[in-house]
């Protein structure tokens, strides 16, 4: 199989991005204090989270596959995580 990078694979997916209301927010202060940023970065299969140069956790919410793994492993309060508004977000064509 042609080896593909994660961005390549995500590009093959179909998304309806909600530009107005991001569905994930990180409490940076709490993330820093609990040190749970690395956990978020490692657990997310879509590479939604990245470590920014200033040490904060970046969020590329448009790539999200809506599995909820990050929310399950985050220390309480670090993430504000909901499903995107109805009709928005990932739209699987295979599943």
């Amino acid at each position, binding site marked *: 199989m042609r080896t593909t990078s994660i961005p390549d694979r995500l590009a093959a*997916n179909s998304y309806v991005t909600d530009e107005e209301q991001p569905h994930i927010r990180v409490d940076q202060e709490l993330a820093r204090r609990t040190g749970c940023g690395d956990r978020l970065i490692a657990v997310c299969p*879509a590479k939604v989270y990245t470590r920014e140069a200033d040490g904060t956790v970046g969020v590329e919410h448009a790539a999200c596959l809506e599995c909820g793994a990050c*929310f399950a*492993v985050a220390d309480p309060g670090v993430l504000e995580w909901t499903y995107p*508004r*109805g*009709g928005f977000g*990932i739209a*699987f064509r295979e*599943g």
Partner: protein
Amino acid sequence: MTAEPDFDVVVVGAGIAGCVTAYRLAQAGRSVALVERGAVPGSKNLSGGVLYSRGLEEVFPDLLERAPIERRITRNYLQLLNAESAVGIDYQDRRLAEPVNAVTVLRARFDPWLAEQCEEAGADLLSGVRVDEVLREDGRVVGVRAGEDELRAHVVVAADGVNSFVARGAGLRGREPLHHLALGVKAVVALPEERLRERFHLTGDEGVAYAVVGDCTRGVGGGGFLYTNRASLSVGVVLRLDDLVAKREDSAAVFDHFLAHPFVAPLLEGGEVVEYGSHLVAEGGLAMLGEVVTDGMVVVGDAAGLTINTGLTVRGMDLAVASGVAAASAVGQALDTGDTSRDGLAGYRRELLDSTAGRDLQTYAKAPAFLERERMYHDYGALLGDVLHRVYDHDLTPRRHLLDVARAELRRSPVRVRDLVRDGLAGVRAL
């Protein structure tokens, strides 16, 4: 009583559990709203894809002729994967074809068909609508709120999957311990149908399901799978969240490792990734099944934690069906008597646990703990691989009896005889 309900029943989530519940109730003449956050049903749903179909055939007798299924599974392949070797048990049986036992499905194609059946039976499908919370009055659930809109019903059915915010909002689920959850990472790899049939030795619409344990997860509790669809493969890993976090592994890297493994890569050769997805899996078995009934509400499918993972098979879809059937029956009776309180709906839990699926949950109650044994994921596969290597590798040393070879390899392996005996006994009891 305040406002008169808009519907007898509001079902949140048009996955398998929600559709089966809605279909049965609509068929019985109830007014049903089926609310789905995806723009179309199925667009948010993902599974490995092997559906044990007999339960669903009881709901839709012509399922196999009419529904968009991929292949009938007639071959099950269990593979123990090591870094340098793989040991497989290849089980093929015509008896699995007649009557059909399991089929592969792709949920983004399958769920729309289910939702269509609900509509034909008279349910109102509201797609592209995310339910934000349950409405309560005097402590009982009286409906749901979605944005500005409120939908009131005698009974709300939470069928919103493993993350169930609806069940959480109603106080029926709390924060789930991580060992009750696993992360599924999956790709669908397109492969021309002819090529796929040749590669997996399949005729017609027959299919194969691979269950893989060992090196595919880099030692993280869980396993890999590879299932044949009509003209594609569903391939992925299921990783226990507690172990993934404890081992600080990167889920995408584990998945890549599986795809690139020398015993997996050739099966994917020439294919093209057409979709990449992830979803949580309920892994706790019976221990995860919480409260499934409260005043004015029942919880079905993954939202209730209904999954059985034996290591060889992952089952959630057939349990979703069974819970939908049980819930529809109990909700129907509660509507008849006019008592939709917790007591009036209590029949659901009983029916669920009495069903075949419910009894299976009890049978496999010890499976999750058994599968937490670390040895399962590398040592046994490696031991077996080493024994077979000694058997087949004619390296000009004199041959020894199989028993001696096995003893010698066992001595070299980290597995102790007492582990073998203990795990063997535990396995026989748990599975």
